[in-house]
């Protein structure tokens, strides 16, 4: 076996680059049936009746499933149980599914789904989140009593005093759009009833096998042990393969259970776009008080997030927005009111960034506007206000348990970009056809779930009698390389070659429920669990062999595939040791549990130690704007992120590049359009994600400050990489054109000639 390149190593690379990796739609089972969802053309309506007879009479159709067929609960959710597996009382958005048709072929299922007749009484649709908050607005969920899903606040200091201390106040309104994850693989499931014990096996494209299992078990009305979700390669998630993916699995599992045959349902792109949850569109009203010396004295803001038709994780998304509502800046006086709101728009839920991309678009422009008013550079303004070692955040958390690397990230980008020199060259709207601009943005980000939820993770190591090793971890391979990171960490900790270790195909029936692989928690939580399990295993091995090695158990070392005593010559080969342990009736087996350190939160004041650690990042971009067409061309982009420790450096860079690319789409191209609540951007030809030619050459710089609270020193990168390029682009466009953009995506038409004669001179 050739030397493995640990800088870019992945356990699944060979399978993926040869086309051998079997994604859900690639799996084949004998006697399989195919399923397709049925939608209606209503946006908001009360269901009177559903006539399935025409569909059922189509030759080849086996069954049409509706809410009536659900033996368990039809209503489920991670926070509020308002998601319908099948719409039962009302249609609440254009993507609501009323039935699933099961047929001998996919084509027949699709044809039959169009034959469904739904009789419903149309209701007034509420599509504007602010209108939805008014007392007389039509209710999306009558039993909730209001369209306000949730509120969060931050109450810190004395806001009135803060405004008195300010020399000037900046007040702006911002708006962000609905965007789609656009994972390359759509939602998909194959469910197989196991003849031996009746367990339903679920193979699917999802990033939360345990949540999927809960959805499936609840829908079927069975115990968790009667559903087994088996790890299957997944074609991208970006936060988007949680609720909707779980519901697709639940419907498929229901068909498999009722018909006692394998059933496959693979979403067509237009179904995926129409039904799956999106990133929340935000409206933010932001007021910032600033002194002449360029210090922020106060922030007052109101955040409204359109959560669409169902709750999904809106309370958690908006919580992060609230905690991070002032960006990486120290502000003594803060008053923030955040609202998650039901509307009849497409459901909004988790998407990479999780409430931060929206807020950073606001904050990172506000600081530039404030800097300009104060007559200092945006960089200097940031330096005067940014968090440093020992700073206290707006929720009262002292940042002292880890290295606060905000300025390090900023300086790294400034140096790499030669930023301040290039800043002087910006066109500010004056010049030839191509106007040049450079801009940056930075952020800090709480790692993992924080006070949102229970946060712990398991890893199981099971060494075999020949020295080969299985490992399984409660985090999911979303395509980001999670399994590889776990294997690299384990090989290092045990001092063995990578090719000894195999990642066991994951199963919810084997590894304990360790939560969802979201919140940039895979490496820190999963890696922490692997490392703790490895240390547990080493303790067992050391106990078994210390006498033979003539040293104390604490002195036993693990290196180069050997278990060594005090000297390198006192050693036992790892494989021999495993065989001997078997003979000693000892299992070289360990379970590791990494529990996130304690966090605190007071919902009434919005104060507490919100996250157990933080990461810091900065990104900058150079671009030109064509004066006639308004076309933006990105020339160059640089990112620097403190990741704690880079376990797999090429994969870390891949996260950064991919995050910047996605953020470019957010800034310039992407927008889900749904006039009157009916989506028109239903495929990748109308919903425009960045292509290679839309992107510049990028540079990703990894900063490593190992974090003491992380057993591996590693922290996070998935989301931090995806939350600041859009505001950097907005700032660069301002520096190029002299014009600010307060809504996303940024649309630039032809630019007017700069004038000095004010309004109406044309």
């Amino acid at each position, binding site marked *: 076996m050739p030397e493995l390149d640990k800088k870019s190593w992945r356990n699944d690379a060979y399978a993926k680059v040869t*086309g051998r990796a079997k994604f859900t739609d690639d799996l084949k089972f004998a006697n399989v049936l195919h399923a397709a969802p049925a939608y209606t053309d209503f946006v908001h309506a009360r269901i009177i009746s559903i006539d399935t007879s025409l569909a059922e009479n189509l030759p080849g159709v086996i069954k049409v499933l509706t809410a009536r067929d659900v033996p368990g609960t039809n209503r489920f959710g991670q926070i509020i149980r308002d998601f319908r597996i099948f719409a039962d009382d009302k249609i609440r958005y254009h993507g609501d599914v009323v039935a699933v048709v099961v047929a001998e072929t996919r084509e027949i299922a699709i044809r039959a789904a169009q034959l469904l007749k739904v009789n419903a009484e149309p209701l007034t649709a509420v599509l504007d989140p602010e209108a939805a908050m008014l007392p007389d607005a039509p209710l999306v969920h009558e039993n909730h009593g209001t369209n306000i899903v949730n509120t969060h606040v931050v109450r810190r200091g004395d806001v009135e005093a803060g405004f008195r201390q300010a020399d000037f106040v900046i007040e702006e309104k911002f708006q962000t759009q609905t965007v789609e994850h*656009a994972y*390359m693989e759509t939602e998909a499931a194959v469910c197989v009833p196991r003849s031996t014990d009746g367990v339903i096996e679920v193979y699917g494209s999802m990033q939360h096998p345990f949540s999927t299992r809960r959805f499936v078990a609840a829908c079927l009305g069975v115990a968790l042990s009667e559903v087994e979700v088996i790890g299957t390669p997944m074609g991208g998630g970006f936060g988007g393969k949680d609720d909707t993916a779980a519901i697709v699995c639940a419907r498929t599992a229901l068909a498999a259970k009722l018909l006692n045959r394998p059933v496959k349902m693979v979403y067509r792109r237009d179904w995926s776009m129409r039904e799956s949850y999106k990133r929340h569109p935000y409206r933010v009203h932001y007021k910032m008080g600033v002194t002449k010396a360029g210090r922020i004295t106060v922030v007052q803001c109101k955040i409204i997030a359109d959560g669409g038709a169902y709750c999904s994780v809106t309370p958690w998304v908006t919580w992060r927005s609230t905690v991070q509502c002032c960006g990486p800046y120290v502000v003594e006086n803060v008053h923030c009111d955040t609202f998650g709101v039901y509307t009849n728009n497409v459901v909004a839920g988790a998407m990479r960034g999780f409430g931060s991309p929206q807020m950073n678009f606001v904050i990172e422009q506000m600081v530039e506007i404030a800097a300009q008013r104060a007559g200092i550079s945006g960089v200097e303004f940031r330096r005067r206000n940014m968090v440093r070692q020992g700073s206290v955040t707006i929720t009262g958390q002292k940042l002292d348990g880890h290295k606060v690397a905000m300025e390090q990230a900023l300086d790294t980008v400034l140096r790499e970009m030669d930023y301040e020199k290039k800043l002087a060259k910006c066109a500010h709207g004056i010049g030839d056809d191509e106007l040049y601009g450079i801009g940056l943005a930075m952020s800090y980000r709480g790692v993992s779930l924080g006070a949102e939820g229970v946060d712990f993770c398991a890893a199981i190591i099971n060494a075999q009698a020949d020295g080969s090793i299985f490992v399984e971890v409660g985090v999911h391979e979303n395509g980001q390389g999670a399994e590889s990171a776990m294997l690299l960490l384990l090989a290092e900790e045990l001092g063995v070659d990578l090719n000894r270790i195999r990642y066991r195909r994951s199963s919810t029936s084997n590894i304990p429920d360790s939560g969802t692989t979201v919140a940039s928690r895979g490496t820190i939580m999963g890696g922490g669990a692997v490392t703790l399990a490895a240390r547990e295993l080493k303790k067992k091995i050391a106990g078994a062999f210390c006498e033979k090695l003539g040293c104390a158990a604490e002195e036993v070392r693990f290196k180069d595939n050997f278990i060594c005593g005090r000297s390198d010559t006192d050693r036992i080969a790892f494989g021999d040791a495993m065989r001997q342990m078997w003979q000693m009736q000892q299992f070289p087996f360990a379970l590791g549990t990494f529990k996130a350190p304690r966090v605190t939160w007071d919902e009434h004041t919005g104060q507490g130690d919100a996250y157990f650690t933080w990461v810091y990042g900065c990104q900058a971009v150079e671009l030109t704007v064509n004066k006639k067409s308004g076309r933006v061309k990105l020339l160059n982009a640089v990112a620097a992120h403190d990741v704690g420790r880079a376990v797999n450096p090429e994969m870390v860079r891949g996260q950064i590049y991919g995050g*910047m690319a996605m953020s470019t789409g957010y800034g310039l191209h992407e927008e889900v359009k749904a006039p009157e609540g009916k989506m028109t951007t239903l495929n990748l030809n109308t919903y425009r994600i960045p292509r*290679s*030619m839309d992107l510049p050459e990028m540079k990703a710089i990894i900063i490593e400050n190992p974090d003491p609270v992380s057993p591996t020193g590693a922290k996070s990168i998935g989301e931090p990489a995806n939350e600041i390029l859009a505001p950097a682009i907005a700032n660069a466009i301002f520096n190029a054109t002299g014009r600010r953009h307060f809504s996303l995506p940024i649309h630039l038409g032809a630019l007017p000639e700069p004038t000095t004669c004010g309004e109406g001179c044309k």
Partner: protein
Amino acid sequence: MKLFVNGKEIEVPAAAMEKRIVEFLREDLDLTGAKNACDVGACGACTILVNDEPIRICIKRVKDFAGQRILTIEGLAAPDGTLHPLQQAFVDCGAIQCGYCTPGMVLTAHAFLLNNPRPTREQIRNAIFKNLCRCTGYQQIIDAIEKAAPHYQRGERGLQAASTPGKPASRHTSKGVNLAKAEAG
């Protein structure tokens, strides 16, 4: 009617002529590397090479390919499983994340390098324009294609992978690519 897929002659049953070629490859031949991700020819995940040209096949029928020479991702590595230098470069450069776009991306790049073994980075960027990737930002994919280019410049043996058995196409020989018969299995 016949197809030549990864160096093998395939006799197509009459009943399959109207099938979408992507389904024929995936279901009838179990070549699942080509993915259905949009069904409208927008994303490139279904790209295969037809007579060395990258074609997005999700909207095409089997009968459109009568007598044509098809290379799918399964036919690119050597019969013993050794990765093609382009595939190896994708692995080495960290160009693979979720892997869903990878087969189409690799084949598009392969066709491009056969025609243009000394590309600039900008030309590479342009060449993969029709293949969407949501994970990587394309940076390491471009790195990988750039890294593989010298193998094409040298015209290494086995580089072209599958072709019609005994009938190597002649169009690339003038550009220094040695066309070996690498029968894919």
